[in-house]
């Protein structure tokens, strides 16, 4: 993939693929730096939704008719694309859910409730999103298991020494965010998984912020469970992915009951369908899943464009796309970090060595909420708050931060406008 190092994404062309980027806010061109909350969608994804409802809409799996067969085929193909996206060993290991949060709850209630006993331990890092904390607290209450905290350093990295000491034969589950939504830290999940496996624990990796920015390979990571939030990956709202190793998924009881997840039903007892259907009760978000397929196609298209190889396989195209995306996003992040750190009274939150597109900061003179409002006035969309990471905020000793989160359609000029915004806040509140 070295060929790519010298080729760069055509950002100007890419921006035209995302119609919302042309919005004017309050007379200013929108600077969308809230990608960590949700990404924008390219035409290809938006149009896949209308096309589906205009030409293919039907319920899947059970229909003999034309539309149902079309819809089923599109849905199944999206699962195969997602398999390649994650480099899963089989498409049966890809479960579609309503969201990343739903995926984690599924694992906690199905795998967790089945396997946890009183005194067993669940390890979660201080930097986890609430979605990777509360489901475990709930199942801990139900089973008598104990949630323990993997501490972090002042730079916002996992304290690996402490992690090693926390691991023991009591450890049954480790939950770890791949890329932190509040700090940008890229955690050494491969290494952490290997360590957890040594004590016999399984690991769930929260890939909500990794999916949109890095090439994922669940087999190389040896992850037991890996979850994605598709609306953050240029795809529609209402879709999540749960990857699980087949051997684990097979042994797990169903989470939700309903249509499509059964084999036979009677009032005397029911039997359940095979993977992946066992975990897809009821009519899924068919249009949304097809939209996820379109988002993966879009990313692959970027990769093929970079290498001018229109016939490249999906996997290689995604390799190329994510190499291009992460190179470019790192440049933007470094530039932003440098510019922000030059401003007096600005403190950057999250200075890990391995770090992806998050610029989070606080200012001495102004509360993040005020920063957000001033920015909004200039058309700059960032997030102010705890970013669903209250334990992390407590650890950092701040009630909230202002967070700009980057996607590959952002530009250096937009980072400059962010910095101008910071200067304006200083002038106003300083």
């Amino acid at each position, binding site marked *: 993939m070295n060929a790519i190092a010298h080729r760069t994404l055509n950002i100007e062309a890419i921006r035209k693929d995302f119609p919302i980027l042309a919005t004017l806010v309050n007379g200013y061109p929108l600077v969308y730096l809230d990608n960590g909350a949700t990404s924008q969608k390219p035409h290809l994804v938006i149009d896949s939704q209308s096309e589906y409802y205009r030409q293919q809409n039907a319920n899947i799996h059970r229909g003999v008719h034309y539309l149902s067969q079309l819809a089923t085929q599109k849905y199944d193909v999206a699962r195969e694309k997602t398999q390649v996206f994650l480099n899963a060993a089989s498409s049966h290991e890809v479960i579609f859910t309503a969201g990343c949060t739903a995926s984690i709850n599924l694992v906690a209630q199905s795998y967790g409730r089945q396997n946890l006993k009183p005194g067993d331990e669940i390890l979660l890092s201080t930097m986890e999103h609430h979605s990777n904390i509360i489901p475990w607290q709930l199942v801990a209450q139900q089973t008598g298991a104990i949630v323990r905290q993997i501490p972090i350093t002042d730079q916002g990295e996992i304290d690996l020494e402490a992690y090693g000491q926390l691991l023991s034969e009591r450890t049954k589950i480790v939950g770890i965010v791949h890329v932190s939504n509040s700090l940008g830290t890229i955690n050494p999940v491969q290494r952490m998984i290997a360590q957890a496996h040594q004590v016999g624990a399984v690991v769930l990796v929260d890939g909500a912020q990794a999916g949109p920015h890095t090439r994922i390979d669940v087999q190389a990571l040896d992850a037991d469970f890996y979850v994605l939030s598709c609306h953050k990956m240029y795809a529609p709202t209402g879709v999540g992915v749960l990857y699980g190793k087949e051997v684990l998924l097979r042994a797990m009881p169903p989470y939700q009951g309903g249509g499509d997840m059964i084999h036979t039903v009677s009032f005397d007892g029911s039997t359940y369908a095979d993977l992946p259907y066992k975990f897809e009760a009821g009519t899924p978000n068919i249009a949304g899943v097809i939209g996820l397929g379109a988002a993966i196609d879009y990313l692959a298209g970027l990769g093929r464009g970079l290498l001018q190889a229109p016939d490249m396989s999906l996997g290689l195209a995604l390799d190329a796309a994510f190499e291009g995306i992460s190179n470019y996003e790192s440049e933007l992040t470094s530039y932003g970090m440098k510019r922000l750190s030059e401003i007096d009274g600005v403190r950057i939150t999250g200075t890990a060595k391995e770090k992806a597109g998050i610029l989070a900061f606080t200012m001495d003179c102004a509360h993040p909420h005020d920063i957000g409002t001033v920015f909004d006035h200039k058309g700059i969309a960032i997030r102010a708050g705890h970013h669903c990471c209250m334990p992390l905020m407590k650890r950092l000793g701040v*009630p909230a931060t202002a967070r700009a989160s980057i996607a590959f359609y952002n530009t250096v000029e937009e980072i400059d406008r962010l910095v101008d915004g910071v200067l304006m806040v200083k002038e106003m509140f300083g």
Partner: protein
Amino acid sequence: MSMDLRELYQEVILDHNKRPRNRGKLEEPTGSAEGHNPLCGDNVTVYIHTHDGRVEEVTFEGSGCAISTASASMMTETIKGKTLAEVDAIFREFQQMVTATGEVAEHPDLGDLEVLAGVREYPVRIKCATLPWHTLHAAILGEAVKVSTE
């Protein structure tokens, strides 16, 4: 769309934010309450000392944005010395001012607080302005509850 930023962040607000009045703890309050806005992490505690149905002392502590800090600061100035019935009327009028749509009415009783009318244009910020008031309300009632404006 949104009005000029200076109408939200008026000088008076910026001044109260920088130099909040009546900040601190009361030694022996007759009531106190804690308020929390989970959306932005704002926290405020209001201490009140009433006697014969009249506010003798009122202070606040906590960390919050400019709007909530200024609102708390001006609130304490406005209500000190007022009867509880008067406080109640002012609270109502304040709430009406920051949430009303349409014509902007006059609010002569609110004094300086009137500068907070600008939050009307910023729906997510309204709760910042009202959090200290809800907390005050709880402190007066002597409720042990924590207030949340979620």
